[in-house]
């Protein structure tokens, strides 16, 4: 079923974000594990599943709209070396993702593709309230506790 040809293009832009997030979170979570920061590993490894869930929704919707999911394109990876860098890189990616989601949601509203819009609002809620909010809290804690104590709490 086709509603608006641009919607598929936009959904593919968003798909690239989810695929980039999967890559980045995979790398970061494994690096946390390697550093012995098991709590961070678990949290970010779980984030990979969330992002895969988002990608799944997007791919299914693109196929339903008779489009072709673009599995190749990625956005810029923001890999960090230190823990604060990794968290900041993740936050930057989530913020870009949220910004793009808002753009696409308003486009869907314009072309009256309400079901896609609804699906994207769910993804935006995860992005804002779960992922980005958690990352911001960690940066705040690093500031409040200092890095060594923060890291100790993530063993």
């Amino acid at each position: 079923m086709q509603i608006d040809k641009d919607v598929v293009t936009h959904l593919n832009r968003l798909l690239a974000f989810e695929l980039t997030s999967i890559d980045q979170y995979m790398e970061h979570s494994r690096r946390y594990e390697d550093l012995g920061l098991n709590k961070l590993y678990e949290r970010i490894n779980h984030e990979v599943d969330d992002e895969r869930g988002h990608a799944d929704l997007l791919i299914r919707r693109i196929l339903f709209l008779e489009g072709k999911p673009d599995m190749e394109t990625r956005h810029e990876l923001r890999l960090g070396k230190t823990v604060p860098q990794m968290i900041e890189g993740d936050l930057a990616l989530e913020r870009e993702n949220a910004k793009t989601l808002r753009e696409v949601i308003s486009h869907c509203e314009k072309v009256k593709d309400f079901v896609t819009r609804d699906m994207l609002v769910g993804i935006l809620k995860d992005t804002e309230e779960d992922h980005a909010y958690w990352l911001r809290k960690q940066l705040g804690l690093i500031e409040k506790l200092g890095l060594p104590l923060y890291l100790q709490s993530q063993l």
Partner: protein
Amino acid sequence: MLGNQQVLQQLNRVLTHKLTAINQYFLHARMYQNWGLQALNDRIYKASIHEMKYADDIIERILLLEGLPNLQELGKLLIGEAPAEMLALDAKLQRSDIDAIREAMAICEEQQDYVSRDMLNHILDGQEEHVDWLDTQLDLIEQMGVETYLQSKL
């Protein structure tokens, strides 16, 4: 049953303190949560709910005494900007509550309203426990430094 005017006035005064505390603790609890200090949120959220139960006891008692509980009046909230300051301000509020309750109890005794006095005594018990906990936290902060203390409250 018509209550003594002085007692009713005192009960309303304590009620104002309780209503103020409910709000102060509630906002502080959610600020802790917003910063990822979940353990502090849990503790202070519960303190807020306790205050609400005390307020309820007082409201019921005032109505029974055929008075009008004043839920309009609210004291100044002491809202801090950082965890240690917030705990210190809670202790300050709690101390002034305790003073108000003690004064109210003395008047109840004087006016021979022993049931109101007993209710206030029960509330006072809870307040002393909470202020004791707050003082312990402030001590811990002094001894281990605020960073290490907060690490234990994630």
